[in-house]
């Protein structure tokens, strides 16, 4: 309900009258005022944090403190290895695990994203102003970092793309009218999760990476060459190791950058 009102407010005369996306001036006004529509979603996350209960009767706050007291600075070090789940988790997967294991709320699929994304936004804001600090202490973290680096450069799919082609080699150029950023070189991780104005949604880095993979035209070789209908593998499933590996690679590169979330993007 709330979201659709926001959407209609934003979708009205202001942003989508003539253009598909807001102008940089409009973005600037929002930023200057120190408020963004993303704050509404973060607020929703904060509310879940304190009030969402499942089968265990616990809330996030029961374990992690009022106002996220014990999670201050946590996001600056994520993704990292967690012994209770026995693997490296990013903020999305960590929250999913806590929801299912400790709160007792099913967090599968799209329904899960409904809680996880606002919660991720809220948890990330608890590290605002702090420098990103990925340490790579656990062997699993090191392994995934190396894997992420490999994936970053990996040319694959029916379009011979890699992350590096668009975000290192072509950084600064335009795909159609979209300017290509350099997440690794320019430490852009510092503004993720980010609110995408053109979509009226908060996106975590998982959403971003999955979106970028869609442009690769990856295909299942079991069914021959690439075919839009037969074997297009559009995106990796959420929480997959490959996504977390790429996050680890990009976020390590952003070490030292001050976290400023939620970002506000086109």
């Amino acid at each position, binding site marked *: 309900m709330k979201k659709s009102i926001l959407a209609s407010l934003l979708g009205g005369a202001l942003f989508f009258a003539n253009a598909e996306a807001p102008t940089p001036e409009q973005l600037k006004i929002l930023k200057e005022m120190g408020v963004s529509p993303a704050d509404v979603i973060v607020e929703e996350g904060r509310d879940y944090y304190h009030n969402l209960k499942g089968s265990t009767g616990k809330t996030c706050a029961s374990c992690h403190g009022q106002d996220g007291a014990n999670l201050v600075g946590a996001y600056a070090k994520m993704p990292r290895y967690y012994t209770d789940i026995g693997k490296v988790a990013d903020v999305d997967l960590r929250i999913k695990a806590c929801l299912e294991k400790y709160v007792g709320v099913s967090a599968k699929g799209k329904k899960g994203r409904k809680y996880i994304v606002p919660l991720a936004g809220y948890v990330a804001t608890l590290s605002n102003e702090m420098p990103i600090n990925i340490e790579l202490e656990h062997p699993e973290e090191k392994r995934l970092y190396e894997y992420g680096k490999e994936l970053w450069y*990996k040319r694959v799919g029916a379009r011979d793309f890699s992350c590096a082609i668009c975000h290192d080699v072509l950084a600064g150029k335009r795909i159609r009218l979209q300017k290509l950023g350099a997440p690794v070189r320019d430490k852009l991780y510092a503004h993720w999760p980010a609110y995408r104005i053109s979509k009226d949604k908060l996106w975590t880095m998982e959403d971003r990476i999955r979106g970028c993979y869609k442009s690769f035209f990856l295909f299942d070789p079991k069914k021959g060459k690439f075919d839009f209908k037969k074997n297009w593998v559009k995106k990796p499933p959420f929480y997959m190791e490959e996504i977390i590996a790429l996050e680890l690679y990009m976020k390590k590169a952003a070490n030292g950058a001050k976290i400023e979330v939620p970002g506000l993007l086109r």
Partner: protein
Amino acid sequence: MKKGFLVTLLISAGIIACQPASQAAKEESQKTVAKATAQNKAKKSSKEEKFRRALGAQDKWQQACSNPVQLAPEGIDVAQFIKEMKATIKYPADGKLVGDWKKGESLALLPKEYKALYGKKGGSKKGNCYACHCGDPRIIACGNIGPSLRGYGNKGIDPKLTYDRIYNSWSQVPCSTMFRFGYHGLLSPEEIADIVAYLHDPESPINK
């Protein structure tokens, strides 16, 4: 004026935000937590397997290009690379390398671009040339990754070279960002011949 509107917008958004989101969530969460069934797990892992298979479908040339500079790596025999890429190129059965430019235009343009120009259905996701190139001056939302194709047909370039480049750009520029349309089967030989016509025909909007 604009600013005033913006302020009311944000204020009202703020007010709306004060309603607890947990209320809506409560009903959901009170339902018993469905344990992931074995079936669901299998579905997820098969999706993961599929994605890994797709990542594994890397050919040896892509592998050679997967380095930090994203170009043919040092020490590699470039002449051999080019020779191997050339060997993959197939030509239309009738041997005609220059087809119908109007069909070619419809392959080069996205459906929305085609519609904007001609007000009717056409276009395709296959070519997507304007993501990287400019060319037809009526299409303003064009990329600057490859050189502009404006007036390409007036340069005296051999259409066979154009055909080969579109079929397999790596037969001319190893590891190029321009993907290998024919090699990957994104475009058929006949379709590529139509695009060659789109680039070379004096009547095509590329050259007019």
